[in-house]
């Protein structure tokens, strides 16, 4: 079991007047090589769930095991190390550094790992070729098209060969053709053995044949219609 949450609860600002319970008693299991669609209105706790599955912070109570490690009470530093080995992120607005070249953006997660420049380049080139963006290698990431940015973001999420990919509203700023293209790449990645979790409202995502399961979040709980 790759992701296993049990009675996971997250409370922000605990003990303060502005206390907010974002997630309460969520339990779910996600197996390897599956593709999950996470749905829920804004404020439903969807982002919080994504953050816990992405090892960004531990739950307030309950357990969360990601790739065989318990997050609860894990110190920040180990959380970071676990995150970079396990999770690849794709963000809504891709979150590339616009002045950095495409190559440098893709290899960004490898710098703190002490990986030498030739190896970084080799790994990135392989991915760029795979995603057909090799011709943009030395372009600043701010000067390429939306579709290309999206591929750069995907390449960055794969560079450390992480088993899990988390995508937060990845198609929100893409037209339907690019959205379909994105889902196709995700489907291919799933075939290669990745586990993919996509938070999205887009029916192009939720109705894609490669999606194994749709999880609905409402008011911090898993909603079963």
């Amino acid at each position, binding site marked *: 079991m790759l992701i296993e949450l049990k009675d996971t609860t997250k409370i922000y600002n605990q003990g303060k007047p502005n206390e907010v319970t974002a997630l309460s008693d969520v339990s779910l299991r996600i197996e390897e090589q599956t593709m999950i669609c996470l749905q829920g209105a804004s404020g439903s706790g969807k*982002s919080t769930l*994504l953050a816990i599955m992405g090892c960004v912070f531990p739950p307030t109570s309950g357990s969360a095991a990601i790739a065989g490690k318990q997050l609860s009470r894990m110190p920040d530093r180990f959380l*970071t190390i676990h995150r970079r080995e396990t999770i690849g*992120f794709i963000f809504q607005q891709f*979150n590339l550094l616009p002045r950095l070249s495409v190559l440098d953006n893709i290899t960004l*997660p490898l*710098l703190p*790992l002490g990986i*030498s420049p030739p190896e970084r380049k080799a790994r990135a080139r392989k991915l760029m070729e795979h995603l057909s963006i090799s011709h943009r290698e030395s372009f600043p990431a701010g000067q390429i098209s939306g579709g290309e940015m999206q591929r750069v973001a995907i390449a960055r999420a794969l560079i*450390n060969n992480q088993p899990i990919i988390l995508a937060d509203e990845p198609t929100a700023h893409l037209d339907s053709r690019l959205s379909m293209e994105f889902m196709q790449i995700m489907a291919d990645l799933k075939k290669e053995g990745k586990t993919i979790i996509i938070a999205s409202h887009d029916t192009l995502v939720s109705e894609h044949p490669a999606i194994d399961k749709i999880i609905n979040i409402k008011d911090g709980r898993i909603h079963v219609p």
Partner: protein
Amino acid sequence: MAMIPKGLEKQLNTLDFALSSLWRRKLKNLGIMMVFSLVIFLLGSFQMLTGALTSSADAVLENTPEITIQKMSAGRQEAIPQTYIKKLNSIYGIRAIIPRVWGYYFDESTLANFTVLALDHNAMPNGSKLNLTLSDGHFPKKTETGTAVLGGSVQDILELGDRRVFSLFRPDLSLKSFQVVGIFSKQTDLLTNDLIVMNVDDARDLFAIPTSHVTDLCVYVANPTEIETIAKKIAGLLPDTRVLTKSQIQKTYQVVFSWRSGFASICLLTALVAFAILAWDKASGLSPEEKREIGILKILGWETGDILAVRFWESTLVSALAFIIGCTAAYIHVAFFDASLLKPVMVGWSVIHPPFKLLPTVTLADLLLIFTFSVLPYLGATVIPAWRCSTVPPDSAIR
């Protein structure tokens, strides 16, 4: 290629990233570095130039007169009566008292100030070797009236060329002419550039000083350890005089160029104001762009320490490079260009410009002083606010 250990490779990666992120904002960062180098250059030049002069003074002024007696009246120095010499006869231990006539001659056509000096040099220590300080000629003998030895610049300013005769005005505007019998060597320019040395009688004639008076008295004692005691005795005997000892004269140059002098204070103040502005700019917080970048790096698996290391490298590189470049430029400025940017301030309206041959002194203490006034405030102003980056939560990128 040889294997580089992972830890070092990581440091190199961090350094690479810091360099490339400096380069991405090259206009701003190079600008800061230029201003920064300039400030250090200015401070460094000042310190090296004054240090060079101070150390020259130290090395050269060890044989300055042991005791100098000047008569004071109404807060001014005035001519001292020759009869004072006799009053000192009662003090035991005085080896020689040499009366001197000296003063300034203002040349109205060139606006230059010359120092006219007259004394019986044969009575002075090393007086017999004095001709070694001339590039040609000899010092005026007592019998040679109307002769003079000129400093390098005096000869130039009077436009003598090959001529050997020049004239100076007496106070009543009558002309007194002199025959040049010697020219000081270029080697002594630092001391003798504006000097006109002549016989005592000629100087009296030129300045219209009565034979009963001289300008000051140089006193030499038999036992150098007695200088202070004898000076005190002289001061007691001649209450209307000011008595200067050798050690006081030597001390002058240890304090005459200091950070408290007006020019240096302005330099330092400028530097501090520059850094105050910089610090204010930096301390006012991270820009949204910086915050976004930090959030992204954090969620991609950079630890807070990694991001701080990048910041640290950025500031260190800018300030350390500026420090090295500024100090190197300062040395070159002082050693090869005669400190030509500071010289005008230093010599003011002087018409006679000293042809410096200066060895810039670079001491560890000076470098540390400049370092404390420049690099440390910059590091403080940039690295400490970077702690704020640890307040950017990693999930800011997915919210």
